[in-house]
C-alpha cells in the first residue's frame, strides 16, 4: 500500500476519533442541561448514537410506584402485570397504541378504577383520599363545565383537591396571566376556543401544585402555538422537581420530551427504561453515510439502501462501524457525513409489536 495513502488514512482516522470524543462530551452536557433536545436532530449532527451514551442516574426520590397491577373487564385482561416507578423531576413517557391499556393504568393511579391485583404507592403511601390531592390529571377525554366561568371552574377544581379557595383564586390569576389568558377569566368555558379550553384544563390540572402530574395525550388537538406553550409549561414543572407522566400514542412527542419510557402493548409492558438505553438496545446495526456512490460487494456490509441523499448500510455482524468507515476511505470514497443509525421509538415499537405477535 502506498505510504501516502496510509498517512492520509491515519490522519483521517485520528480526525474522526477526535470528533467522536468532542461530540460525546458535547452530547453529555446537552442531556444534562436541556431535556428538550431532540434525539431526532441529534441523529444527524453526531456520529455517536444516543444508545451508547451514559444514562442519567436517578438521584431523586421515587414519587410513584406501580407494582404488578392487573385489571380485566368481562374476563379480558386490559392491564396485565404492569410495574414501573416514577421519580421526582423526571418526565416519563407512557406509549402504546390506542387501546393498549395506558388510560386504564392511569385511571388506576388516579384511584378512579380499582386494580384487580397489584399495588400502587404515591409518595410512599398506598392510594387513599389524601394521595388524590397530590396528583394532577389531564384526562384524554377533555371537557369542563360549559356554563361556568374560567375562574370559577379553576377554583372549584383546585378546592376539590383540598386547596384553600383564596389561594386557588390567586394562583388561577397567576397562571392565567402567565399564559396570556387573563382577559378571559370571567368568560364562560363555552365561549372559549377548543385550544384555549385545553390550556385552561391544563392549568386546572396543576393549579393545586401537585407533585405528580399525569397528562393523557396532552398535545392532541392543539395548534402549534398552544402546543409550544404547553411544552414550556411542562418543562417549567419538571425544573420545579415535579414528576410529569406523558401518555401518548404519538411516539415522537414522547421521544422529544421524555427521559424514560414505558411501552405498553395489549396490556403488558413491552419495554421499560431509559429512552437512550432502549434505543441502543434496538439499534439495527446500520450506519448512515452521505457519499456520492457506493461500490457493490464491500467487505463487512450485508446490504445497503438509499434513503433520500443518504445510504443506509447494514453491517454483516462481523465488522464495526469503524471498520466500515475505514473500508470506505480505503476504497477512495469521499464521505461527507457518517453516523450510526438509531431507530425512532416508533420503529422500535413496531419491531416490538411484531416480535410480540
Amino acid at each position, binding site marked *: 500500500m502506498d505510504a501516502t495513502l496510509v498517512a492520509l488514512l491515519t490522519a483521517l482516522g485520528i480526525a474522526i476519533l477526535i470528533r467522536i470524543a468532542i461530540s460525546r462530551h458535547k452530547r453529555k452536557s446537552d442531556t444534562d442541561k436541556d431535556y428538550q433536545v431532540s434525539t431526532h436532530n441529534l441523529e444527524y449532527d453526531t456520529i455517536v448514537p444516543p444508545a451508547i451514551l451514559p444514562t442519567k442516574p436517578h438521584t431523586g426520590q421515587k414519587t410513584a410506584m406501580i407494582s404488578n397491577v392487573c385489571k380485566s373487564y368481562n374476563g379480558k385482561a386490559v392491564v396485565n402485570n404492569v410495574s414501573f416507578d416514577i421519580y421526582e423531576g423526571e418526565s416519563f413517557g407512557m406509549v402504546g397504541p390506542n387501546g393498549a391499556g395506558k388510560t386504564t393504568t392511569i385511571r388506576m393511579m388516579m384511584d*378512579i378504577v380499582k386494580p384487580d391485583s397489584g399495588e400502587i404507592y404515591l409518595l410512599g403511601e398506598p392510594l387513599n383520599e389524601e394521595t*388524590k390531592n397530590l*396528583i394532577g390529571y389531564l*384526562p384524554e377525554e*377533555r371537557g369542563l363545565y360549559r356554563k361556568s366561568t374560567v375562574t370559577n371552574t379553576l377554583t372549584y*377544581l383546585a*378546592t376539590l383537591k383540598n386547596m384553600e379557595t383564596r389561594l386557588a383564586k390567586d394562583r388561577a390569576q397567576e397562571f392565567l396571566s402567565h399564559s396570556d389568558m387573563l382577559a378571559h377569566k370571567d368568560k364562560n368555558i363555552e365561549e372559549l376556543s377548543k385550544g384555549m379550553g385545553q390550556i385552561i384544563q391544563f392549568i*386546572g*390540572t396543576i393549579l393545586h401544585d401537585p407533585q405528580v402530574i399525569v397528562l393523557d395525550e396532552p398535545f392532541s388537538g392543539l395548534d402549534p402555538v398552544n402546543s409550544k406553550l404547553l411544552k414550556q409549561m411542562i418543562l417549567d414543572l419538571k425544573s420545579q422537581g415535579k414528576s410529569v407522566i406523558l401518555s401518548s400514542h404519538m411516539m415522537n412527542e414522547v421521544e422529544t420530551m421524555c427521559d424514560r419510557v414505558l411501552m405498553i402493548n395489549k396490556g403488558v409492558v413491552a419495554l421499560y427504561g431509559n429512552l437512550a438505553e432502549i434505543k441502543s438496545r434496538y439499534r439495527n446495526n446500520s450506519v448512515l453515510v452521505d457519499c456520492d456512490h457506493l461500490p457493490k460487494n464491500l467487505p463487512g456490509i450485508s446490504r445497503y439502501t438509499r434513503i433520500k441523499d443518504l445510504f443506509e448500510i447494514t453491517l454483516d455482524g462481523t465488522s464495526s462501524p469503524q471498520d466500515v468507515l475505514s473500508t470506505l476511505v480505503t476504497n477512495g470514497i469521499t464521505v461527507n457525513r457518517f453516523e450510526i443509525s438509531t431507530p425512532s421509538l416508533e420503529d422500535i415499537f413496531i419491531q416490538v409489536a411484531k416480535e410480540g405477535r
Partner: protein
Amino acid sequence: MRKVLLILRREFREATRRTSYILLTISIPLIAILGYGVYELIQLLEEPSSEQVDKIGFVDNTSMFHDYSSPLGLEFTSYEDEEKAKDDLLADEIMEYIVIPEDYVSTGTIIRFTMETPLGSGNDTSQETEGFLLTNLLEEQVDDEILERVEVPMVLATLSLNEDGELAGDSNEFDKFFLPLVFGVLFTFSIFFTSGFLLQSVAEEKETRVIEIILSSVSSRQLLAGKVLGLGGAGLLQVLVWLTSLRIFSQVASVNIPALEELSLPIDVLAFGILYFIAGYLLFAALLAGLGSIGSTARESQSWSAIFTLPAVAPLWLNFLIVSNPEGAFARALTLFPLTAPITAMMRIPSHSIAPWELALSLFILGVSIILSMWISAKVLRAFLLMYGKRPSVREIAKCVRQA
C-alpha cells in the same frame, strides 16, 4: 367531608340559578295569586246581574199559590196574566216566569218561560221553584217546623270513625280531598324536578367528560352524597317557598274566600309530609343518579327516567281510589311499595287514615330501599360513568347491580 360540602354548595348554587328552577319555584305562588285575581274578577262581574234580577213571576191558574220568598232570597211574584209577565221578562224585571196550569195538582205540569237559550248555562232555579210549590201546597196541612224540614230535609254532618269505633279526627271535607291532592301534586313536582336535575347533572358531567377530573379528586360516593344533598337542599327550599307562600296567601285571601279559612295544615301533617318528601327525594335521587351514569348523553338518560317516574306518579292518576277508600287494601299496598309510598302517604296523611304501624312500616321499607339504592347507585356510577360512547347492555347493568 369538606369535598362533599364543596360539591353540595356548587350543586345547590347551580340548581337554584337555573331559570327553570326559579320559574317553577315562583309559579305556585303566582298561580295562586292569579287564581285569586280571576276569582275576584268573576265575583265583580257577576255581582250586578245577581242584584238586578232575583225575581220569578208566576201565573196561577189554580188559585192555590201566593207570593213566596226562598231561603236564598229569590222572590216569587204573582201575575194576573201571561202577557204582563212576558212584558216584565222582556224588560228584564224578572228572571223567568212559570205558568201553573189548572190541572197542575193531577198532572204536576209546570210551564217555565225563560230568555235563556236551551244550551246556555243559566241559573238552575228548579230547587227554588220546588220550594215555592211545596210551601204553598203544604202550608195549611203541616206546622211550620215540618214545612221547614220539607223544604230543607237535611243539613249533613259527617263524622268518620276509625277501626276502634272512635272519632277519627275532625278534618273537614276540604282538608280531606283538596289538601291531599295539592300535597301530592306539589311534592311530586318537586321530587321529580329535583331528582331530574340530579340525573341531568350526572349525565352532563359524563357527557362533557368533566367526570374524569372530578373522580380523580373525590370518590364516587362523595360525589353522589354532595350532589344528592345539594340538589335536595334546592328541592326542599322550593317546597318551603311554596308552603310558606300558600300559607300567607290563604290567610290573606280567606277574607274574601270563606273556603280558604277552613284550610288548615296541622303540624303533624306538615312534619310527615316533609319527612316523606325527603325520603321520596332520596330514593328517586339515588335511582336517577344511577340512571344518569348509564346513558351516553343527558338526553338519553332523561328519556329513561320514566321507568321510575311512571310508577311513582301512579297514585296521582289513581287518586280517586285512594281518596275514596283511604284505608282500603289498594291504598295500603301503594303506601308500602317504596316507589309509590311517598306520594300515596302524602295523599293519605291529611285525612289521618294511616295507622301508626303502617306509617312505621312504610318508612322502614322506604329507608331500607334508600340505603340499598344509594349503594347500588354508587357502584353503577363508578362502573359506567367512565364508559363513553358505548351504552352498557341490560345484562352488564344487571351484573353490576348483582355484584353490588
